[in-house]
């Protein structure tokens, strides 16, 4: 019989073939996964690290939450505090889930606490190592200056960086924790036979990690607040952080409680109970509102640029998304009549979407130029209206219209600047075609029998649209509005082209504010902190959106 070497033995037989399949699969996903990890996942942690430092081109001192406090005022402490609290609430729900499984399956999950604990220890020892190793590894770039560029030098320097005094013990601790986790997990699987063993292990691992994050975050926040307090007292001013934190937190808690009771009120069967609940909810909501009333004062201590940027972004979203949805819904319903040539129209509507936005922005820039003879100004003059400054105009559109008809508009109602209006128009012009194509696909999915039977029942065209077509299109509408809102938060290219100093920053959305802080003012740490504020806002919006989708969107 032929002798097989180790490799041949490993990859033959049923088990060997499966192993080979796994390895092939990992090989297949490796290049893409590594790239996505290096440029898509790792940067989030890196950005977090940067945001906790004073960092202008090169890294400087670690300054904790200071960047965040500069950005949003003392709200940063409140949010950090609530994130910690949220992690602890997550732990509570995990424990409840474990208890529920235990009750249902008559399990004894408690021994799996041990591998769970080891897992959490592994995660934190890894983070500890990451935190210590990152600066050492980053410094290689400076050490390598003037040296020959070859791999050996780099390998040596990398080894040196990873063996540094502060890094190596952390790495050893991590390895120890990793081995302990694996060993304990296998042991638990082997000796503690129960059906939900692995599930329990996962729950406990997650639970302890969350517990660590929660406690760590709370302790960190407390320390930061105390440090800020001490600094302020040394200067002889009263920062008033604690009262602010407490009022805003209790305001938010009252809000949450009010919301919960309101949800319950909707479920009550008897009128009396309903009104009781509704009243309680109202009282809590009003109380919460009064306490949160402190918020504007707190925020005002933060960076005005952020709130201006947020306002511009909201104008951009509200100006763009609803209008382009209405136009494209209308166009798609007309196109869906399958008239001769509707395909040609579809191709034409889609052209703006595929056109490079920088080129189309350059065209819009000239059409909406402030020259008297520019096309749009010519059009206005032919209507007997005065020509406008367009992209150089920081005044709000409502103010301008008010001036035209001789009505003075208060400054809070000025609306988006005229420069922003041009950007909004360009955005609508670009995306109507895309939305129309998606709506057409949505219309194609509606069963024709529904429309036919409604028409047989005597419904007119509008009624069919209102009660059948539109509700059945709601998933499409939801999808498009989400894409549109996220798009307005992400938009960069066109606004950068349209941007003019004469518009006094009235076209700078949040993304632009961050980019300018990074690209022109070179404040990397602060820009990263701002970027996380934006991330938080987008996450919150998505969560709210998901909630709304759950209750409002109708999936036929």
């Amino acid at each position, binding site marked *: 019989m032929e002798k097989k070497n180790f490799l041949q033995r490993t990859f033959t037989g049923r088990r060997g073939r499966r192993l080979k399949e796994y390895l092939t699969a990992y090989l297949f996903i490796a290049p893409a996964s590594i790239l996505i990890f290096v440029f898509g996942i790792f940067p989030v942690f890196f950005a977090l690290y940067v945001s906790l430092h004073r960092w202008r081109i090169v890294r400087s001192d670690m300054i904790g939450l200071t960047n965040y406090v500069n950005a949003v005022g003392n709200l940063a402490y409140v949010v950090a505090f609530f994130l910690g609290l949220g992690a602890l609430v997550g732990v509570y729900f995990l424990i409840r889930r474990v208890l529920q499984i235990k009750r249902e399956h008559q399990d004894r999950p408690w021994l799996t606490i041990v591998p769970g604990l080891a897992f959490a220890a592994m995660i934190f020892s890894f983070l500890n190592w990451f935190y210590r190793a990152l600066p050492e590894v980053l410094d290689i770039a400076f050490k390598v200056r003037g040296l020959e560029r070859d791999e050996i030098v780099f390998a040596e320097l990398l080894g040196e960086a990873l063996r540094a005094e502060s890094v190596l013990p952390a790495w050893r601790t991590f390895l120890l924790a990793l081995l302990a986790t694996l060993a304990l997990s296998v042991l638990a699987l082997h000796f503690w036979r129960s059906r939900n063993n692995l599930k329990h292990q996962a729950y406990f691992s997650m639970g302890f990690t969350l517990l660590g994050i929660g406690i760590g975050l709370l302790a960190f926040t407390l320390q930061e607040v105390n440090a800020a307090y001490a600094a302020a007292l040394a200067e002889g001013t009263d920062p008033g952080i604690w009262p602010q934190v407490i009022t805003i937190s209790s305001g938010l808690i009252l809000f949450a409680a009010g919301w919960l009771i309101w949800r319950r009120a909707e479920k009550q069967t008897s009128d009396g109970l309903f009104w009781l609940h509704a009243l309680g909810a109202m009282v809590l909501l009003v109380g919460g509102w009064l306490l949160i009333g402190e918020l504007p004062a707190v925020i005002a201590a933060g960076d005005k640029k952020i709130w201006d940027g947020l306002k511009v972004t909201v104008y951009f979203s509200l100006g763009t998304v609803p209008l382009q949805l209405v*136009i494209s819904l209308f166009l798609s319903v007309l196109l869906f009549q399958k008239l001769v040539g509707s395909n040609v129209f579809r191709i034409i509507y889609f052209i703006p979407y595929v056109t490079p936005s920088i080129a189309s922005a350059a065209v819009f820039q000239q*059409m909406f130029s402030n020259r008297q003879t520019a096309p749009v100004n010519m059009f206005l003059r032919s209507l007997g209206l005065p020509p406008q400054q367009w992209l150089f105009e920081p005044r709000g559109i409502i103010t301008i219209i008010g001036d035209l008809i001789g009505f003075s508009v208060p400054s809070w109602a000025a609306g988006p600047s005229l420069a922003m209006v041009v950007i909004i128009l360009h955005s609508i012009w670009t995306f109507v075609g895309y939305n129309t194509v998606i709506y057409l696909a949505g219309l194609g999915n509606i069963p024709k029998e529904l429309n036919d039977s409604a028409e047989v029942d005597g419904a007119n065209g509008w009624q069919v649209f209102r009660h059948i077509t539109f509700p059945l299109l709601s998933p499409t509408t939801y*999808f498009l509005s989400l894409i549109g809102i996220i798009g307005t938060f992400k938009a960069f290219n066109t606004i950068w082209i349209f941007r003019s100093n004469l518009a006094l920053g009235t076209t700078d959305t949040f993304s632009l504010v961050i980019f300018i802080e990074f690209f022109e003012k070179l404040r990397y740490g602060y820009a990263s902190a701002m970027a996380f504020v934006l991330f938080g806002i987008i996450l919150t919006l998505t969560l709210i959106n998901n909630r709304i989708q759950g209750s409002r969107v109708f999936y036929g």
Partner: protein
Amino acid sequence: MDNRHKRRKGFSYASRRKIFIYIVLSLGAFISLIPFIWMISTSLMSLGEALGTAFFPSELHFENYAEAWRRAQFSEYFINSILITLITLAGEITFSIFAAYAFARMEFPGRDLIFGVMLSTIMIPAMVLIIPNFLTVTWLGRIGPIPWINNWPALTIPFMGSIFSIFLLKQFFAQVPDELFDAAQIDGAGHLRFLFQVVLPLSKAPLMVILVLSFIGTWNSLAWPMLVTNTPDWRPISVGLMNFVDEAGQLVNLTMAGAFITIIPILVIYFFTQRQFTDSIARSGLKG
């Protein structure tokens, strides 16, 4: 007779409705196209005419295109953009095909977890990533054998791992019937043969979409190339056009000629692929 009268009335209602629909659709088409018409018409005017009130040129100045091409150094920027696009696309499509195939048709531990984690990166705003990625790229260029800043790696490698392409292809690969795979296996074909001889020939449509979308994306990117290039050596056409608009903004006829030059390649590709393109956009949109 009453009947005939009714039918005639119905007919005229239908045709009136049709005319209304055509008017509205044409208005939409007009608004979609007017910037293009104005751009082309202005690009053919003399400067004096372009700054005046005329909508159509009195005589055609085709030399504007040569002038814009020369002044904006478009030949250099075009070559840069084409190279960047080709390198990015080669990497992105190869890596995405393999990854999408593994996610769609192979079993391995952690498959759904890895895919889920990768998919969740779609949520992360670009502004969070741009600063650390800039630092990473600078670092890689300093320690590695070739510089990354002002060179092709910084402009292409970060975009080769695209979860969007993987997602689109995975959806498509998963629809290939299992029977085909079983038959291929009986014939002794492994995963690689199956992927290249059966799955890929069936997937021309999604590959085309990825091709066109990545092409547009690369052709359009501005913030990242602005960051990682500071000489014209590797600057793409988007940055070139922006600089040209900044410098020659008053020469309306030339900027419009420049803008049209940069649009042409994309328009050509779009007209050749528009059928698959709009179809796949619609499908990916609804399922995504």
